[in-house]
C-alpha cells in the first residue's frame, strides 16, 4: 500500500512539474510582448521598460524559471495585471461556483444516465435501448454550447421575452440557488448522462451474462432485484472511476458551459484570461485545472484499489 501510494504521488508530482514547465515556456512562445501586455496598449515605451524591469522580464530564461518555481513552491501563482489581483486567491474565490456546477452536473448525469443504462442492458434492442441509443449518441455528439443556448432559449428567453414568465434567469449566478443552477447543470449533465448510460449499459451487459446472475435467476430472484442489487454492485467500479475523473475535470473549470451561462467559475476565468491576454491568470488556471485532474486520477486509483479487491495495490489488475 505505502509503495503504491508513494509511486503514484511521485508520478503525480512529475506530471505537475511537466505541466508547470510547459505553461511557463508557453509565455515565451506566445506572440506579443508580456511587458507590453501587462502595461496595456496605451503605455509609453518607458513605462513598458519600467514594468519589464520591475517584473524581471529582462532577466535570462533560466533566472526567470528559477523565480517562477520558487514562487509556485511558496503557493504564489503570480499577479494578474489585467485584473489588478493576485492569481491564486482569485481562482480560489471562483471555486464555489465551479463546485456547484460540477456537482450539479454530475448528479444530473448519474441520475439520468444510470437508470437509462440499466434499462437498456436489461432489455437490449428494446424500445428504450434503441431510442436511448439514438438520443445518447446525439447528446454525446451535440456540442455543449449548442445544448446550452437551446436550453436558454427555450426555457429562459422565450417564456420571459414572449410570455412575461420568468422561469429561469438568463446567464446569471446566485450561490446555492437551484433556479440559477438548473440550466447549466442540465447542460453539463445531459452530455454526461449519455456517456454514463453507455458505460452502465456495457458494464451491466457484461455482468448480466455471468454465471452468478444465471444462478440468481435459477433461484427465482426477481429480475429487478437481480439487476439493481447483484449486477449493479459489480458494474459500479467503472462508473465510479468515470465519475471521479469527471469531477476532477469539472472542478478545473467547465470552460464552455460557464462561458455560455456567464457562470463565474474557473472555466469562465480561463476564457476571460485568454480573451484579455492575461498570461499570469491563464497560467494559474491551467495549473489549477491540471492539479484537479491529476489529484482526481490519484484519488480514483486509490479508491478503486480499496473498493475492488481484484485490483492489486501494485497497480496492476
Amino acid at each position: 500500500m505505502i509503495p503504491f501510494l508513494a509511486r503514484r504521488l511521485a508520478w503525480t508530482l512529475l506530471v505537475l512539474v511537466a505541466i508547470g514547465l510547459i505553461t511557463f515556456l508557453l509565455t515565451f512562445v506566445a506572440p506579443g510582448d508580456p511587458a507590453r501586455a501587462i502595461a496595456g496598449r496605451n503605455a509609453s515605451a518607458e513605462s513598458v521598460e519600467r514594468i519589464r524591469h520591475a517584473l524581471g522580464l529582462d532577466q535570462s530564461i533560466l533566472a526567470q524559471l528559477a523565480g517562477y518555481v520558487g514562487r509556485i513552491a511558496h503557493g504564489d501563482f503570480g499577479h494578474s495585471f489585467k485584473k489588478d489581483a493576485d492569481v491564486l486567491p482569485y481562482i480560489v474565490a471562483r471555486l464555489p461556483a465551479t463546485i456547484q456546477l460540477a456537482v450539479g452536473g454530475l448528479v444530473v448525469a448519474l441520475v439520468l444516465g444510470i437508470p437509462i443504462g440499466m434499462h437498456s442492458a436489461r432489455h437490449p434492442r428494446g424500445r428504450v435501448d434503441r431510442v436511448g441509443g439514438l438520443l445518447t449518441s446525439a447528446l454525446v455528439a451535440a456540442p455543449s454550447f449548442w445544448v446550452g443556448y437551446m436550453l436558454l432559449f427555450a426555457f429562459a428567453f422565450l417564456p420571459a421575452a414572449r410570455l412575461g414568465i420568468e422561469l429561469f434567469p438568463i446567464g446569471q449566478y446566485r450561490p446555492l440557488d437551484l433556479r440559477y443552477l438548473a440550466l447549466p447543470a442540465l447542460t453539463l449533465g445531459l452530455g454526461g448522462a449519455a456517456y454514463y448510460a453507455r458505460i452502465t449499459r456495457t458494464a451491466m451487459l457484461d455482468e448480466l451474462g455471468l454465471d452468478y446472475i444465471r444462478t440468481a435467476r435459477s433461484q427465482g430472484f426477481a429480475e429487478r432485484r437481480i439487476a439493481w442489487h447483484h449486477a449493479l454492485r459489480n458494474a459500479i467500479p467503472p462508473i465510479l472511476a468515470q465519475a471521479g475523473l469527471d469531477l476532477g475535470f469539472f472542478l478545473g473549470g467547465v470552460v464552455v458551459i460557464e462561458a455560455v451561462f456567464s457562470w463565474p467559475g474557473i472555466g469562465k476565468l480561463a476564457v476571460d484570461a485568454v480573451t484579455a491576454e492575461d498570461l499570469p491568470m491563464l497560467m494559474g488556471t491551467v495549473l489549477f485545472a491540471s492539479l484537479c485532474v491529476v489529484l482526481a486520477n490519484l484519488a480514483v486509483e486509490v479508491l478503486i484499489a480499496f473498493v475492488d479487491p481484484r485490483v492489486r495495490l501494485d497497480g496492476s489488475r
Partner: protein
Amino acid sequence: MRRALPALLVTSIALVATACSPATTSSPSAGAASASSTPATSTAASPTVDVTTAPAAAGGGELSMAVEGDLQSLDPAICYDTNCGPLVHLLFDSLVAYDPNAATLRPGLAAAMPDVSADGLTYTFTLRDGATFTKQDGSALRAVTAEDVVWSLNRILDPKLTPTPSPVGPAFFSPIEGADKVLDGSAATASGLKVVDAKTVAITIKAPNRAFLNVLAMNFGSIVPRELAGKDTTAFSAAPVGSGPFYLAAYTRGEKAVLQRNQAYWREGYPRVDTIEYRLGVDANTQLQQVQAGQLDVMGNDIPAGGFTATTSDPALKDQVIREPLVATNFLIIDSSGPDKALADVRVRQAIGLAIDKDNLLRVNNGRGTKAGCIFPPQMTSYDAACDPYPRDVAKARTLMEQAGYGAGFKTSLYTDTQDLSKALAESIVQDLAGINITVDIVQQDFDVLIGTLTTPHAAPLTYIGWFQDFPDPSDFYDPIFSCAADVPGGASFGWYCNKAADALATTARGNQDEAARNAQFGDLQDMVMADLPSVPLFYPDVAILVSPRVVGNPFHPAYYIDLAEIDVTQ
C-alpha cells in the same frame, strides 16, 4: 480611454510641451456649445444644464448594467478601459467634469472653473464645500481637502506604486511642472502642485495647454483619500473609496459590483437611482437577451453584429436601441517616410485617399458609423463638416498615380487585427486599391502584436485601425498620433509623420484660451495634415446598445462612454 473591444486603438504618449506662447488671461469657460449633433434616438440633455439644481422628479430605484469582461481595476491610477471606466467615474470625483451628454467641461470637486494666470500656466482651483469621501458602509470618512488633490495627482506619477506604477496616467500628467522629478523618483511631489490653503490648489504646467483641463477630468484625475489609497493599487482596487455620486457597497470580483447612492453627494438631486448592479463577464449576446427578457437595464457592450439587424428592425425593440457616435475615427494609416518609396510620395497617398470607397466600408460595417472626410470626429468642437479633400474619384486617383510614376502600380501590405470585421473592411480597401493598380496582401495580427507593429517605425506600410479619444479635445487627435513627438520608436505615429510647421501651429492652438480662435487653429492644423495625408480618415464609428423600457435618459456620454449618474428608472 481604451474600449474593451479591440476594434479601436487607443494609445497615448506624453503630450508635447514645447515653446511657450503666452496667451491672454481668461478663465476657460465651460459654456462653449458642443458641436455634437443629437441623434434621433437619444434623449441627450442640453449641454447648458445647470448641474447644481435638483431635477423636478424624484429619483430612486435600482438599475442594472452588464459588461463582457472583468474589471481591470477600480483604482483610478490603473483603470483605463470601458469596463472599469464607467464605474470609476461613479465612485470618484475630479476637479472638473463634463456636462451631461456633452463634451463640455463644468466644475466638479472645484466650486468653479479655475482662475488661469496671465501666462496660461497656473490654474487655481477652490474646492467646493460639502464634498466628502464615503466609506463602504455609506458613512462619511471626511471632507475632501486640497492636500488630497495634490496627493492624488502625485500618486499618478509615483514610480513606487505597487505592483506596478500607473502605465498610462503619467503620459497625461507629465505636462505638470516638476512631474519628471516625481517620475524618476528624485522628488515626492511635483513642484507644479501646490496646496494654497485647505480649500485651494494651484497647478502649474510647463507650457500653455487648454486641454490640461480635459486631462484633469479624466478618471486618472480622480481625487482619492490618501490614508486609504496608499501605494498598493491591488488593495485599493478591492476597496475603493471616493467622493463620487455612488459608493461601492459590495463587490465580488469577476461577478458583480453593487453601488449605492451617496446620500450626502454635493450635487443636489443626483445621482438619480439608489442602487446600481454592475454585472461582470456577461457575453454581449446574453446581455441582449437579458434586456429583452426584462432581466437587465443597460448593455455595456455593443449589440453584436449577428443580432444588430434583427434588433434594430424589430418594431417592439427599435425604440429601445440607443445609437451614438463614438468620439473616434477609423483610419487607413500610410507609412509616409518608410523604405517604400511609392508610399513616401504624397501624390500616391492622395491617390489612395481618392480611391477608397468609404460608402462601401460603412455598408460592410453594418451601417454603424458616418463617412469621415477629415480627422476630427463630429463631437469635437473643431469638427468641420465641410472638410472632405478626398471625395472618391478613381480617375483623378489614376492620374495622380501616373504623375508619380506609379501608373503600372506596385505591391504592398495592409496590417490589421484578427477580427472578422476588420478583415472584411481591409478586403474592401484592398479591392479599391486594386482599382489603381496597387496590389495589397492583408496581414492579420493579434491586437497586442499589432500594437507592437504599429509602434515600431516603418514595420507596416499600411494599417487599418481606429483611434478612440482619451479626452474630447482636438489635441488628442493630433499630439499622440500625428505630432513629431510621436514619430519615435515606441510612439504611436500614424504614418511616421513629422511636420514642424504643423507642430508649431499645434503648440499655439493648445495654449489658446479663446475657444473660437483655438478651433480655427485646429481646423488649419487638420488641413495641413490632410494635405500631407499620412493617414486616410475612413469613418467615424457608432456604438449601439439596447436598454430596457425602464431606462429614462441616454446613458452614453462622449467622454465617460457610459454615465449612469444622470439616468432614471421608472418603477
